[in-house]
């Protein structure tokens, strides 16, 4: 599943990413994590605006596993019962594409005069 990288068409078909998916990819960018920690990290990243509840979180995780964006890694330590996840190359690839899409969108918005005023 996590196999080959996606070609451009496949990438474009998956974009834009659902917000939860993008945030999970960002939260998993440089380290693996388990569900509860992911939730907290997404909350931190969005300054508390986005709270992933368990149902939403695991539904997103299941979808991302199926799409090969993340993989499950065996729990570390005997006491850790929770499963942890990390991004795959494909997951990184799609996160980059989404970032690029958002960057281009922001650039266009700025050109259109939507630049935030400096305080």
């Amino acid at each position, binding site marked *: 599943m996590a196999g080959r990288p996606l070609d451009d068409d496949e990438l474009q078909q998956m974009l834009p990413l659902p917000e939860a998916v993008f945030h999970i990819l960002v939260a998993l960018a440089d380290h693996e994590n388990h*569900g*509860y920690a992911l*939730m907290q990290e997404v909350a931190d990243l969005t300054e508390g605006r986005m*709270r992933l*509840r*368990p*149902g*939403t*979180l*695991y*539904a997103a*995780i*299941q*979808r991302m596993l199926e799409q090969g964006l993340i993989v499950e890694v065996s729990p570390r330590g005997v006491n850790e019962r*929770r*499963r942890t996840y990390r991004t795959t190359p494909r997951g990184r690839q799609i996160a980059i594409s989404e970032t690029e899409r958002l960057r281009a969108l922001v650039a266009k918005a700025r050109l259109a005069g939507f630049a935030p005023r400096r305080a």
Partner: protein
Amino acid sequence: MRPRRRSPPGESLFVRLYRRLTHLYPAAFQDEYRSEMVEMAKECEAAEAPDRRLFTRLALLGDVLLTAPEEHFRMLRQDVRHALRVLAASPALTVPVVLVLAIGIGATTGVFTIANAVLLRPLPFAEPDRLVLLDEMDVKRGNTSIGMTLPGLRDYQQQARTLEDVGAYFDGGFTLTGGGEPERVNGAWVSWNLFSVLGVAPALGRHFVPEEDGPGMENAVLLSHGLWQRRFGGERAILGQRIEVSGRTRTVVGIMPPGFRFPENGELWAPMSLGPKEATRTDHFLTAIARLAPGVSREQALSEASRILEGIRQQFPAESGHLGVTLVPLRDRLAGEYAPALVRLLGAVLLLLAVTCTTVMNLLLARAAGRRREFAIRAALGANRRRALRQLLTESLVLGLLGAALGLVFGTTAVPALLRAAPLDVPYWIQVTPDWRVLLFTVAVVLAATVAFGLAPALHASSANLADTLRESSRASSGPRVGRLRQGLVALQLALSVVLLVGAGLMVRSQVNLGRVDLGFRAEDTLSFSLVVPQPRYPEPRQRAAFFASLMDELRSAPGVGRVSAVSELPLERGGWWRAIGVEGTDTAPLAALPVALHVVVTPGYFQTLGIPLEAGRDFDASDGLDRPAVIVSRTLAARLWPGQDPVGRRLKVDPFHPTEPWRSVVGVVSDVRAQGPRAPAPITVYVPHAFDPLAGMTVVMRSAGTMATLPGTARAVVSRLDPSLPLSEIHPVQTLVERAQWHFRLYTQLFVAFALIAVLLAALGLAGVMSHLVVERRQEIGVRLALGASPSDAFRLILRRVLALLGAGLAVGVVSSAILSRALGSLLYGVPPRDLLTLGVVLGTLAVVGLLAGAIPARQAAHVSPITALRS
């Protein structure tokens, strides 16, 4: 170790509730994530400040409620996509399965569409459940319904508190002249309030008002939407205009809404405008419809109506002493004649559905054997069994839906086509367009069928473990249990086929018996048409009699025409006028004691024209007029009135209570005619010459002296020569009436036969298929036997024995079931008992031959097994 508890002690109510709700997720999702979700919910709850805890809890619960259906839906989409791929990859299985399901579901939906239209769909009136037929019956004649008298109607209208209102009508035909071809249209004479009782408002204009319903106030008319469009171009200006209806000028006061064609296919309605002449307590010519007052039950209304009738009986014991009253739900009365057959047909089609489901289940079981490996490997790799089961059931559902889609196309095109082919106009309130009930029924059928045919194969396919499967697959076997199940299914199909075939056989025998019934007249080579001379232009009875007499003469002398005569109502035509007969010599007994005979008005020569034998005396002739009242009686009436005596020369009165009724002499006796169809006994009948009772509307019967094809043209030309303003209507061979009387039953019989033949075909295919599979499975065994010296005919017999065992079991179960079920056909049958040995024998013989032929194919395969290749494989 202590047994694990489902929820650890000390867990909060919230956590317990959360744990419960997570069961809403698909099983596979639960298996994966449920425990972690519950842990996470606990941590979320604990991390919140106490004042925000309630909000968090609600958010957590809401999250489950929102995401669980999403997961189900997503999984369904995945499974449907997967199912479509799997099914598309194996068209050899998919196509027959879908076709067989389309037959089963299509036929079931088709029959249900008709049953729904007749039995379930609300009638096109306001609050139709409150509408009842208020009917009087003759207690002395087995509670026969006889209709309402005008004074009776007034009594109920004035006295009943439990009835909001009572309206009434009687059927009528009208002639439209002026502006185009004269045209005959059906309709009814209605009480001014009838349509407001029904709760149907005119689309344009207004209802009748009480003043228009008085005697001599015959000048208003309501038109149907269709007639308005067709004849008056849909012009609104027609309102208030005067048109010529049956020779009288009437004002159009309103247009009824589109589709309204009360009572059956009416297009024009006029107020009854009845006077004292019609207000007798003996003429039960009205059909009365009442609306129950709000909150009143039919029982309450009936007990009040009975009290009112009791008053009438005490006041008029001679005329009304024999009366009873009933309140019948309007739907029951309208659907009455169709209901018994439809319910039985629905039963038959459900049996067919069971046969098709069994067939599909058998096919899927055969395939499940092949797929066990796939699922065993998936299970070995950690896939969830419930997930596999769900996926397999989704496949079945997709098959069911494809079958249903095809079946619906078939059902919705076949049903209207069947009704269009009917030799009569279907009453307007029967709307066979599918509605939500049909849709709901189809969905229910698909779901039930999916479970019926899909569950066992799915359980079988998904139950495999790898070791078993690998062992099985080396023998290409599906295991003995499944083999037995498949054989059992074939036996079930055979049994259902017996039931359906016996039912079809009984129907066919009844049909043949009905066809053999001598109706008492010869319908072949005769053409009939109705003709009404408008009373205002032919006001004098003598004028009407003279018109018809000269019409008969002119027609007789036309080329290609044999005998010609006219009659008030042909046998098998609906309606008829029933009148009490009083005999000279017996004291004027109360009405209830008098025989009630069908009153038929004829012109001279009628009996010869229609081939009704004259048994004694003479036919009417030109001398039988107003001054010499004569009648001819049917054989049974004669025997009833003058048992063992010569009736010719005796005298009787028709309606002896009528003050001006004269004594009439019996001049002849004719054979009985089954005027109410082959099932009913011939009614006692009194025939009256048209010269004595010159009705304005008669049905003319012409016997062909050459070809039938020229008769309609001849009739039109002759009538138009005599009076160009008279329209001919209902021009058809008299044979059409015979066909109409049989039409329902013939259709039911044909459907029954079709269902039974499909069931037999499927059962035969199932038998051949399952046995072939058995031969393949047991090839090695057969090979060994052959190698050890058994002959090919031994192998043939080995399989044939199995075929015989299945056939025997199936037929035995079928015989017992049909003995129980065919009794349900009871009232539909004619001249054949539900347990008819001849039918059963023919059915069993046929099925035995078909079964043996189907079984011979696999048996021959067994005989041709080559021991060498069988042992090597």
